[in-house]
């Protein structure tokens, strides 16, 4: 086992991790550990754009963007964070342009902008052109541009190093009022080198988690196979709370049956949704902005059309995305990749035929709680010195209960940069925290027991059962019965997981072993999402409870905070403690959310 020492270790090389690395790498001795080659990260799958109130094509300002973000998140957004994001969005886009990102341009050479769901002029009056874009591969261009700049700045990458544990110590400490508490401090991480099967300890003054989401909890998802909630899972096991995990975004337009993302940019460019009667049904659900309503509303409307018998296809289980009224040349210029997906995977020609679509699990709004400096919190307000998080793994919270389209590419750039700066600044004056004894012990025993297990359960079987039960019960519509059904199965799967074995017993590129470890994270994430969904007895944003169909500000205008706690029981689930945290308000008081 090797021990490496760095000032800053960044875990994950998607947009947030690499944006952090560009800042940190120029200021401190920095390493990036990533389970994939950096350019394989799922930031590259983002399509439509990145919003910033540049006002290049029409009047706009960051305050309108802040409002849209807060309203889009159904007022569960921390408004101080949303202000930071909307304000810094403008520089974030300009930074990327200066780094070389090839944005689409207006006729006079400026960065072009287009419409996107929930982004409006003057507090909801009409859709606004705010999304800066590079065709329908904006995420690809961001990922490539950030990687190019990491190469430029000689950022040190450890590719295919899976971080499986975080090293933490707890110290006795006292609050201002004299009460005692345990202060967590981060000492480093434990990682597994895929090529050799060796464990490496990385001791670091600052650790940045930028590990992305957990979409693979669901069967139908736009997420990559590798998005298994590793970072959230590691933090959760270390006693760090997870905030707002009941809020998962289901993107309206996944290719039916496959879940592959078709960008909201399609609707931004004029495509519309139709049901089996050929009706543009969004006119009924969101009369003002129709197909460009936020994603939670559109996804629910689609699911409702299907539920009421107006779905299309032999099983009447999807609706149609209609681009046939758009000019083929316009489609080719603005939406080349997604129309190619429809042709390749469904054999549908979008010029002439509408495309079958249905909501697909897309984004986890919740995550590891941070403040606006990207510092991770161990409770509602205590910072863990040296630990930072940014991107989908984190919950700052700029997305509240429903993220607006394009705001994730923005989030990773704004808070990725902040995380990199904060981590380097902290490392400049901090000392290393002493490594615990046998730092690799937890991970090596986990691996050994998995490799030596003679259990009869297969990872792929358990994972499929988990994904099926989550799709059936914890998707866009939920109620107590469905959540109960999911929990029973999740608990049973957690038991069966103890009896899992892997077939590959080798040390080289043992992806069989890693899928087994990833399944452990998925089970934890499914449990905590379902527990938090059970706890929130109201409907808000992406979380819709049919037994509590209204928003309940009196009881639930607050973030949920789930803790792993062996001694606790919440909603009948043992091992999870549920607490809440106030929402930060600055400018906007909650209003009814209509579009």
């Amino acid at each position: 086992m090797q021990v490496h020492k760095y000032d800053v270790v960044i875990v994950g090389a998607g947009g947030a991790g690499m944006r952090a690395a560009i800042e940190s790498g120029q200021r401190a001795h920095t390493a990036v550990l990533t389970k994939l080659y950096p350019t394989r990260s799922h930031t590259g799958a983002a399509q439509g754009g990145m919003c910033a109130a540049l006002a290049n094509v029409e009047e706009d300002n960051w305050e309108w963007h802040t409002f849209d973000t807060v309203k889009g998140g159904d007022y569960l957004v921390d408004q101080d964070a949303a202000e930071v994001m909307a304000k810094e969005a403008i520089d974030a886009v300009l930074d990327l342009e200066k780094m070389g990102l090839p944005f689409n341009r207006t006729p006079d050479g400026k960065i072009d902008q287009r419409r996107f769901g929930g982004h409006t002029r003057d507090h909801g009056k009409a859709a606004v052109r705010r999304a800066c874009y590079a065709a329908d591969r904006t995420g690809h261009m961001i990922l490539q541009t950030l990687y190019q700049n990491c190469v430029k700045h000689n950022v040190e990458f450890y590719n295919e190093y899976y971080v499986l544990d975080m090293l933490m110590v707890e110290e006795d400490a006292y609050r201002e009022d004299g009460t005692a508490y345990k202060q967590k401090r981060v000492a480093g991480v434990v990682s597994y080198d895929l090529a050799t099967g060796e464990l490496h300890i990385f001791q670091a003054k600052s650790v940045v988690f930028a590990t992305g989401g957990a979409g693979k909890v669901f069967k139908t998802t736009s997420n990559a196979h590798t998005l298994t909630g590793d970072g959230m899972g590691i933090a959760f096991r270390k006693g760090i709370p997870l905030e707002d995990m009941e809020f998962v975004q289901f993107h309206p337009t996944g290719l039916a049956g496959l879940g592959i993302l078709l960008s909201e940019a399609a609707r931004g460019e004029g495509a519309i949704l139709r049901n089996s009667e050929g009706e543009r049904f969004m006119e009924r659900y969101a009369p003002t902005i129709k197909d460009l309503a936020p994603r939670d509303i559109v996804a629910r409307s689609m699911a409702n059309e299907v539920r009421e018998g107006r779905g299309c296809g032999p099983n009447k289980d999807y609706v149609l995305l209609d681009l046939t009224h758009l000019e083929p040349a316009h489609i080719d210029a603005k939406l080349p990749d997604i129309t190619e997906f429809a042709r390749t995977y469904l054999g549908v020609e979008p010029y002439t035929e509408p495309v079958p679509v249905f909501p697909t699990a897309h984004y986890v709004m919740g995550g590891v709680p941070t403040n606006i400096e990207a510092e991770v919190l161990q409770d509602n307000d205590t910072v863990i010195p040296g630990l930072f998080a940014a991107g989908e793994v984190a919950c700052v919270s700029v997305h509240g209960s429903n993220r607006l389209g394009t705001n994730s590419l923005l989030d990773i750039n704004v808070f990725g940069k902040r995380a990199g700066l904060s981590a380097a600044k902290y490392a400049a004056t901090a000392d290393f925290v002493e490594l615990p004894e046998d730092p690799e012990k937890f991970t090596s025993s986990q691996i050994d027991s998995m490799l030596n297990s003679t259990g009869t359960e297969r990872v792929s079987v358990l994972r499929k059962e988990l994904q099926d039960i989550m799709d059936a019960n914890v998707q866009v519509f939920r109620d107590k019965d469905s959540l109960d059904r999911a929990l029973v199965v999740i608990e049973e799967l957690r038991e069966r997981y103890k009896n899992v074995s892997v077939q590959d017993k080798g040390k080289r590129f043992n992806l069989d072993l890693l899928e087994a470890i990833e399944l452990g994270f998925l089970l934890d994430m499914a449990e905590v999402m379902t527990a938090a969904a059970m706890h929130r007895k109201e409907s808000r944003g992406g979380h819709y409870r049919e037994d509590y169909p209204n928003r309940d500000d009196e009881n639930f205008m607050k973030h949920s905070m789930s803790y792993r706690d062996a001694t606790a029981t919440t909603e009948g689930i043992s091992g999870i403690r549920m607490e809440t945290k106030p929402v930060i308000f600055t400018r906007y008081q909650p209003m009814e959310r209509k579009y």
Partner: protein
Amino acid sequence: MSTELPEPASKIELKPGVGGGGEIPTFDITLRVRRYTPESTADAYWEDFKLTMYGTDRVLDALHKIKWEHDGSLSFRRSCAHGVCGSDAMRINGRNRLACKSLLKDLDTSKPITVEAIKGLPLEKDLIVDMEPFFQSYREVMPFLINEGHEPSGERYQSAEDHAKFEDTTKCILCAACTSSCPVFWTDGQYFGPAAIVNAHRFIFDSRDDAGDMRLEILNDKEGVWRCRTTFNCSEACPRGIQVTKAIAEVKQAILSRTI
């Protein structure tokens, strides 16, 4: 530039059977996989798997079916599973393809479908190769914007025409399908390979970049663009539809016009 469109109709008559549908057919295939498991067997070998697959399945689905239901030790890289991350380039029936973009129904399923690792890079295990030499060539062409002028406070302007000069090569996902399909690269590991040249092209023809001459100098090397024999394997292999050979030709042309 976005254009204003008239509002589409609230209701239209759908053609019968529109939007695909119908029963998805199943069919049987044999996937013949080139295995290499150096921890147990010194030499690579072929192994056949008989599988029942669906009409919408891709080669990646067949590989997953083997790994998840038959042999968990079969090793291959994959992530996004829809052709944007570049993890799963492999030789499918002798041609470089992304496994996640190759539909089984488009292949001849009456014969075994062969799957093997891409060529020209050190083989590690089954379908996994060492990508480091590939990324080394990429890094050598300085694949990042270099601008000597003072930093503008706002954005740099670029006309749509200037943007169009290099847009094709910005689509590269670094999957190595092109480079590992190139016969020159197979025989000469020093050759930069098409992907590195594509990524140099992306900056050489970017009006905002000032280091085109330096990159042209690098590619004028004996292991540079002149090794290209225009066999078009690279263009044929590119899963993003980049006109790789054309990009290489434009770089050659730029070197020539520069030295005249």
